[in-house]
């Protein structure tokens, strides 16, 4: 049921762990299955300097968070905010019943960014920025 890329990420997940005193943090629970995930962000300037996550979840959830962390690390906040669960699900080739697992990963990321914006409102990408980058989702 899983593609090799899921297995690969799942067996060797990147960026597992915690960051002490993170700039952004969130713990999110899936309303579908009850699994959960937490994401820690360290932000330098407008970049995501480091990201760590921990997941209580299935193989798809662990692979989704691993892949998302790989994509996000080193990106700007605005770029990171653009990543969607569809992109993750597509890259991993997740089957229908496992789509909510990629949603869990991306909502945890968004919640961690939100946490950062709460303390740094000036960092929030403006609607105009987002539109300029084609985020019309």
């Amino acid at each position: 049921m899983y593609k090799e890329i899921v297995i690969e990420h799942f067996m060797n997940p990147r960026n597992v762990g915690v960051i002490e005193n993170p700039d952004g943090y969130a713990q999110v629970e899936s309303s579908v299955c009850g699994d959960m995930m937490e994401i820690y962000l360290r932000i330098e300037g407008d970049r995501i300097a480091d990201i760590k996550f921990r997941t209580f979840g299935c193989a798809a959830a662990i692979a989704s968070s691993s892949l998302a962390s790989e994509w996000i690390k080193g990106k700007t906040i605005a770029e990171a905010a653009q990543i969607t669960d569809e992109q993750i699900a597509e890259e991993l080739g997740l089957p229908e019943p496992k789509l909510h697992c990629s949603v869990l990963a991306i909502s945890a990321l968004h919640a961690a960014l939100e946490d950062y914006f709460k303390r740094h409102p000036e960092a929030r990408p403006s609607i105009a920025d987002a539109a300029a980058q084609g985020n019309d989702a």
Partner: protein
Amino acid sequence: MSTRRVIYMDHSATTPVDPRVVEAMLPYFTERYGNPSSVYRLGAEARAAIEAARQTIAELIGARPKEILFTSCGTESDNLALRGVAWASRHKGRHIITTPIEHHAVTHTCEQLEREFGFRITYVPVDRDGLVDPEDVARAITDETILISVMYANNEVGTIEPIAEIGQIARERGIPFHTDAVQAGGQLPIDVDALHVDLLSLSGHKFYAPKGVGALYVREGTPLLPTQTGGGQEFHRRAGTENVPYIVGMAKALELAYASLDEEAPRLQRLRDRLIEGVLERIPGARLTGHRTQRLPGHASFVFGGVDGEAILMYLDRANVAASTGSACASSESGPSPVLEAMGITGRQALGSLRLSLGRENTEEDVEYVLRVLPPIIEKLREFSPICPDAALR
């Protein structure tokens, strides 16, 4: 590792077909392929084969041949038992008693009877070991009760229910009693009179017969309306041309299972107990689900705090161990298992379940191998997990 054979520990899901069963079936595909309803000799030969199979199965469970109906699987047997009795008795009453830990073949059928046909369903509770209290069943009976259905042994946690006691109560009140014996067939002795059951479901592929064949025992005099109509097969109770080779195979398989039960059951029980002891000893926070001793001989099931069941299965698969999780996350449904919830194991703890069900090919070495690979898997997954086991177990 890749040259190693797969250690199959999912016999509650299905079993490999016994080569002796295959051999018994083979002539009925290409040589004795007649339709049992045909009058010529080819037909008569096929008819004789199913009647012999019926006789075999009847004897093994203490029934009479005409009380055995062949079906396509355990699910069909459960469906026919519930719907057949409900339809036949609908003018007498519309109340059914069952439990929250039944297989979906029972619960979803009950739900439909409730939703679409105006039946009322009472789910008697189970205790933390998954046991039904017969007294609760007795208390739930009303003048409207037309059927009681309680499984013989649970697929997820292995607990064996007090079927004979419940049957006794049903008998005294004159209410038909059905038991889903899909997990028990070939693993626990079955005597329909000693158990006081009126209907009993079996599924061939749980005891080394192929998938696609099942049986339903229906005690003479039990009201049952056919749910599949057509030709007059199976005493006008289950229409459709009989699946001759598979029926032959199922009878052979059940015969073999009961012929070796006296050695096989204690052997499996020893392996199971070693597995249970080893897991509880080596994995902090592991907890056995289901009754410690009143459980299927080859069945061991656990919950582990802090980890998701499907993740455990994937890692075990990489270590060449095939097992399953009670949490439906692994299948198309998500969320904690209703069976564990009914036993008071809730929330995240119920998501980290593992079932290891042993069978004929399993050896002591297999058990030792699993006891070596499982603890580091749980430990690794806990490292990925935001929930520490202590908190998860609380």
